[in-house]
């Protein structure tokens, strides 16, 4: 479908029809103090040729560093077929189609995506995706508060081992809706929530959030935590890495009853690292919560002749029907990212996904062992990890990372700002993309830099 902008003549005709003098006049009712007067930080426009040149120069400046940063976005090998298929004309749109009669291919793809996600998370239903991992968690928190009729509580327990940026985003979205996030501290030795110590947490809550693996890469005691929360009539919101689910227990099987909602960042499934996006969020839940789930859902049905067909379903939750009472007014859907993720999962299959997970875990284990053999480097926490781990380095971590970057190595994520109590920690990650040589190069460079800092 081509994008057809209005011509000046058409704009003039439309303005004349409604009796407005100009486009500007349409915004008159917004008080001047609330209106943006241009965007200072954005420079004037450039031509396509100038932009192409600028971007080429920037790319050269960036070089091709060896990346050991995870912290929520992960470098994985993406089979060439993934984007070859995703960018075909038939799929090349960022939006979920709502015209079933014109969009069977895309709708079937989303249906298959949903099926894959429910199998990966062990839950009953998946939506067609959300904006990103952090906003998916915010939506999950809102959904849990709406759904939990047993407690009617507007408190949600949010461990500090949940991604700090996710916690910020959730706070920004829920704070004006009368929802309180209660921070739960972590065990300093384990690097995970102390499941035994939770009994001191006072009061009722609508939900407990559990990130697995957590922001430190460490594994939480999901079964104990899930059962603890369910005994207190809370819902359990799982924040999970989809690659890790190739190896770890799916949220639907946590504890005795399973997590109620699972959400997370879909980027590891075939989306390249690119300045923070576009990525996509995913969300799955138990069947009895489906009417409180935000976002679109594609269903499979039959047409008048009994042939299978696909269409959006359960739309009464959505804003075009429920207006202000919709389960979410975010309908921006990362359709193209989901197309890539679906191709990625289809190409890898369960066994391929498991191998990526195993290789990522093995490489991170090798990286941690190698780095911790260096004097002045040790592991921060005792808890087992998946493909990311926190290290203590006897040096100014931020300065060290700058020097490593100069040497072409992105050495990890500094924990100093988000976890000052750790006195400077370094979060490192090695996915299946890293070789033994890469790890050795990091170690050798680090030894050199530690001698200098």
């Amino acid at each position, binding site marked *: 479908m081509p994008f057809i902008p209005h011509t000046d003549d058409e704009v003039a005709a439309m303005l004349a029809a409604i009796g407005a003098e100009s486009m500007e006049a349409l915004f008159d009712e917004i008080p001047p103090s609330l209106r943006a007067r241009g965007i200072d930080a954005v420079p004037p426009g450039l031509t396509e040729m100038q932009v192409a040149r600028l971007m080429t120069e920037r790319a050269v400046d960036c070089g091709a560093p060896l990346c050991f940063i995870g912290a929520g976005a992960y470098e994985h090998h993406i089979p060439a077929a993934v984007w070859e298929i995703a960018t075909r004309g038939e799929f090349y749109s960022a939006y979920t189609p709502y015209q079933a009669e014109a969009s069977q291919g895309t709708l079937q793809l989303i249906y298959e995506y949903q099926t894959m996600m429910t199998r990966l998370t062990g839950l009953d239903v998946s939506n067609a995706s959300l904006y990103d991992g952090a906003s998916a968690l915010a939506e999950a928190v809102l959904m849990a508060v709406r759904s939990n*009729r047993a407690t009617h509580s507007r408190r949600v327990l949010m461990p500090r081992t949940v991604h700090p940026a996710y916690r910020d985003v959730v706070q920004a979205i829920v704070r004006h809706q009368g929802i309180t996030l209660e921070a739960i501290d972590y065990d300093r030795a384990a690097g995970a929530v102390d499941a035994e110590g939770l009994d001191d947490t006072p009061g009722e809550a609508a939900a407990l959030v559990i990130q697995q693996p957590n922001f430190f890469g460490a594994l939480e005691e999901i079964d104990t935590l899930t059962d603890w929360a369910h005994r207190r009539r809370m819902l359990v919101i799982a924040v999970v890495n989809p690659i890790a689910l190739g190896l770890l227990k799916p949220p639907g099987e946590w504890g005795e009853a399973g997590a109620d909602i699972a959400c997370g960042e879909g980027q590891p499934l075939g989306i390249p690292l690119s300045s923070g996006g576009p990525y996509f969020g995913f969300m799955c839940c138990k069947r009895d919560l489906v*009417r409180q789930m935000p976002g679109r859902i594609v269903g499979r049905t039959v047409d008048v002749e009994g042939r299978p067909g696909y269409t959006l379903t359960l739309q*009464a939750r959505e804003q075009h*029907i*429920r207006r202000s*009472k919709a389960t979410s007014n975010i309908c921006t859907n990362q359709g193209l990212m989901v197309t890539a993720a679906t191709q990625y999962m289809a190409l890898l299959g369960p066994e391929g996904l498991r191998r990526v997970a195993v290789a990522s875990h093995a490489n991170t284990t090798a990286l941690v062992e190698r780095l911790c053999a260096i004097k002045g480097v040790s592991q921060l926490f005792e808890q087992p990890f998946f493909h990311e781990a926190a290290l203590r380095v006897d040096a100014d971590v931020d300065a060290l990372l700058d020097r490593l970057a100069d040497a072409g190595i992105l050495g990890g994520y500094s924990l100093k700002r988000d976890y000052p109590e750790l006195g400077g920690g370094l979060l490192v990650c090695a996915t299946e993309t890293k070789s033994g040589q890469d790890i050795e190069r990091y170690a050798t460079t680090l030894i050199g830099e530690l001698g200098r800092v």
Partner: protein
Amino acid sequence: MSEIPADLRFTSTHEWIEDEGDGTVRVGITDHAQSLLGDMVYVELPEVGRVVVAGEECAVVESVKAASDVYSPIAGEIVEVNELLTEGPDLVNKDPYGEGWLFRVQIAEGGDLSGLLDADGYAEAIAAEEA
């Protein structure tokens, strides 16, 4: 023309109210409302024990083409809900004044039904809406 039983009371938001004579009322949506909404696919009922004020939203009826809030016609406490609707929301279409009832309210102290419409009043309200 939809059915408007003479022995019931009504609201302008299309709820019907039946006085049970024991301090409770039974509430549902009218024949007119169900015919406008079309085939019901889901009914979200309030929790038993919930205290409501008159005019408070306490249920949602969802049809193939719309979802609508249902308001409590009177202040009180929800004492019973129609569990049959969980599996059979179409009862609201088939028998709106009988098996398709939604919930029962124990009327709060001092409350009465005098502010509600009678059958003629409701018929006028519909006519005004359609005019």
